């Protein structure tokens, strides 16, 4: 399951849905939560805005999830990414992998977040005390 949304998400509810949906087939669920944190590249962040490319984003996330499911034989996967304005401490992204074995769950979860960060069209703009700046430029 992949989702792109402005609203916050409930990590616990997503994990619980994943667990009950995988009844008996899964021994390991590994999840990653990405949060807005302070001092990103030395600037104090008061707020962040996430822009994305509707349509392409969903396709990119579907591909990341499908590749992970195939390569590590996952029983289920989740990618949720927020867009729009975000404050310090807010959840940005949630990734989870469910597998019979823990090693595959770890590898697949890390693959999904790593690949999302290079392949999915999201862009962060930070509000800092010295003005707005696009992250990574």
């Amino acid at each position: 399951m992949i989702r792109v949304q402005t609203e916050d998400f409930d990590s616990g509810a997503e994990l619980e849905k994943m667990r009950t949906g995988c009844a008996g087939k899964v021994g390991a669920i590994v999840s990653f939560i990405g949060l807005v944190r302070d001092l990103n590249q030395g600037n104090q962040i008061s707020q962040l805005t996430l822009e994305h490319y509707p349509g392409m984003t969903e396709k990119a996330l579907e591909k990341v999830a499908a590749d992970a499911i195939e390569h590590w034989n996952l029983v289920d996967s989740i990618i949720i990414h927020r867009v729009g304005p975000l404050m310090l401490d807010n959840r940005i992204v949630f990734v989870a992998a469910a597998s019979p074995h823990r090693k595959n769950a770890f590898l697949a979860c890390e693959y999904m977040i790593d690949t999302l960060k290079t392949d999915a069209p999201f862009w962060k703009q930070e509000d800092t005390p010295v003005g707005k700046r696009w992250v990574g430029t």
Partner: protein
Amino acid sequence: MVQLQFFASIREALGVGDEQLELPEDVRTVMELRYWLQQRSANWDQALSGTNILTAINHELVQGDANITDGDEIAWFPPVTGG
């Protein structure tokens, strides 16, 4: 007609997010289209210069030599920073 899309710092620099365009006769690849757009003004030249600009045709990342077909959606954007 093709659909152009610009995102993030490129969209801001151009002051435009999307545009419909009749493809010029001699423009066949995304790199040719990018050069053609850069002729418009110093601002367009500047905004679309740089080696790290990414291009997608119909939501798929492509290289500069990718061919454009009528009806395509072509997007330019800086390196992604999600996650």
